[in-house]
């Protein structure tokens, strides 16, 4: 087997970066899945991978340099290649010509073979056939789905579609873009693009139908004394009055601050569940609590004890 430095075309004192760059450049050129049917490319790629597996690993490279291992036996085990599948019948799965069955469709005859087989087409009927609907998936951020947004979808054929995500779009909802599916034949209209929207989770907001739920941290003094605080909502910050003596778990409602009205559904509300946060240690508070004699002592775990 050839010297790995020669195979990669790098000097013996090349840095690891130089070796990596050389490998990448050669892999791009000779990758067998990008050169189907080219036995020479396949051979070269094998040699390049073998050389890279020695030289990319400083330990193996050192052993090779000291003559402890030779360049043979470093070939990669043969692996499942894409080209073997893509060229056979199973490759129709990723065909760009729309033919999913065994035989050739009209698109397969295309412009190249059309002149040879052109006569065939006249025997086909020429009735109009409605274009096929095409299915796509689109991921979107939580707030874009709630408030509505414009998004862009790259199709398998490289075209991009501008997709309007309407306010209130729910996870799994399918948007239909008329006329953006497969082309119709013989004057028939094109099919539709059906886009299934996947809405990502939000760190704070949780959607519950038209309502939004949120766990809202409040300080001890905000909980005990009440006060006006700012609450994040899908539409931005909104101020809200926390009533005095609000406890952890208290749920406050902000009417009309949930999911906007859409498709005949009324605007939802935002439910903020309070969560008291004590924050950093505070000597004054500790001192106060040590001397504090509550007027109405409570046992917060009473219910647990009565109904274990």
């Amino acid at each position, binding site marked *: 087997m050839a010297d790995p430095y020669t195979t990669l075309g790098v000097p013996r004192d090349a840095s690891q970066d130089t070796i990596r760059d050389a490998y990448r450049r050669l*892999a791009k050129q000779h990758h067998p899945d990008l050169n*189907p049917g080219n036995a020479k490319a396949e051979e070269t790629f094998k040699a390049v991978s073998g050389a890279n597996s020695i030289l990319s690993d400083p330990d193996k490279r050192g052993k090779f340099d000291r003559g402890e291992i030779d360049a043979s036996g470093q070939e990669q085990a043969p692996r499942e290649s894409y080209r073997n*599948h893509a060229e056979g019948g199973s*490759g129709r*799965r990723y*065909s*760009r010509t729309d033919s999913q069955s065994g035989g050739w469709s009209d698109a397969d005859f295309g412009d190249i073979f059309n002149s040879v087989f052109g006569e065939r087409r006249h025997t086909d009927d020429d009735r109009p056939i409605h274009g096929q609907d095409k299915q796509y998936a689109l991921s979107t951020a939580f707030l874009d789905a709630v408030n509505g947004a414009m998004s862009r979808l790259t199709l398998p054929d490289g075209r991009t579609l501008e997709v309007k995500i309407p306010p209130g779009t729910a996870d799994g909802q399918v948007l239909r873009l008329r006329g953006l599916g497969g082309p119709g034949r013989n004057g028939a209209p094109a099919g539709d693009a059906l886009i299934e929207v996947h809405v990502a989770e939000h760190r704070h907001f949780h959607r519950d139908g038209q309502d939004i739920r949120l766990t809202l941290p409040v300080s001890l003094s905000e909980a005990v004394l009440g006060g006006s605080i700012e609450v994040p909502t899908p539409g931005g910050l909104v101020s809200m009055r926390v009533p005095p003596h609000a406890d952890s778990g208290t749920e406050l409602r902000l009417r009309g601050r949930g999911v906007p009205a859409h498709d005949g559904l009324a605007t939802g509300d935002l439910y903020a569940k309070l969560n008291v946060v004590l924050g950093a240690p505070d000597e004054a508070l500790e001192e106060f609590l040590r001397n504090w004699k509550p007027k109405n002592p409570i046992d917060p775990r009473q219910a647990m004890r009565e109904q274990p």
Partner: protein
Amino acid sequence: MIGIDGVIGQISGLTRQDLERWIANAWVRPDKSADDYAFREIDVARARLILEMRDEMEINEDALPVVLLLLDQLYDLRRQMRDLNSAFLQVVPKDVRLDLAAHLTTHSR
């Protein structure tokens, strides 16, 4: 046919996030079963190829759709050529095939 966890286990360096995004982009198109995907061998091989193109050949994900588009067209053409080849073998008499070969060697540029 294997599920999404099987594919992630088989291809080292592949994250679930990557694979799910590629599926969402329709770069990899497994069948959908009740609550998982069902990958055929070609889907697994394609995911591995996409990972190699991105990580070893440094084709970033913005450029990948173009590469996949051209690659799919290349394989479409090769598949058509093979179909044509086997159709010729079955349908076209040998002397015509030899004529065709002679024509291609002498007249094509």
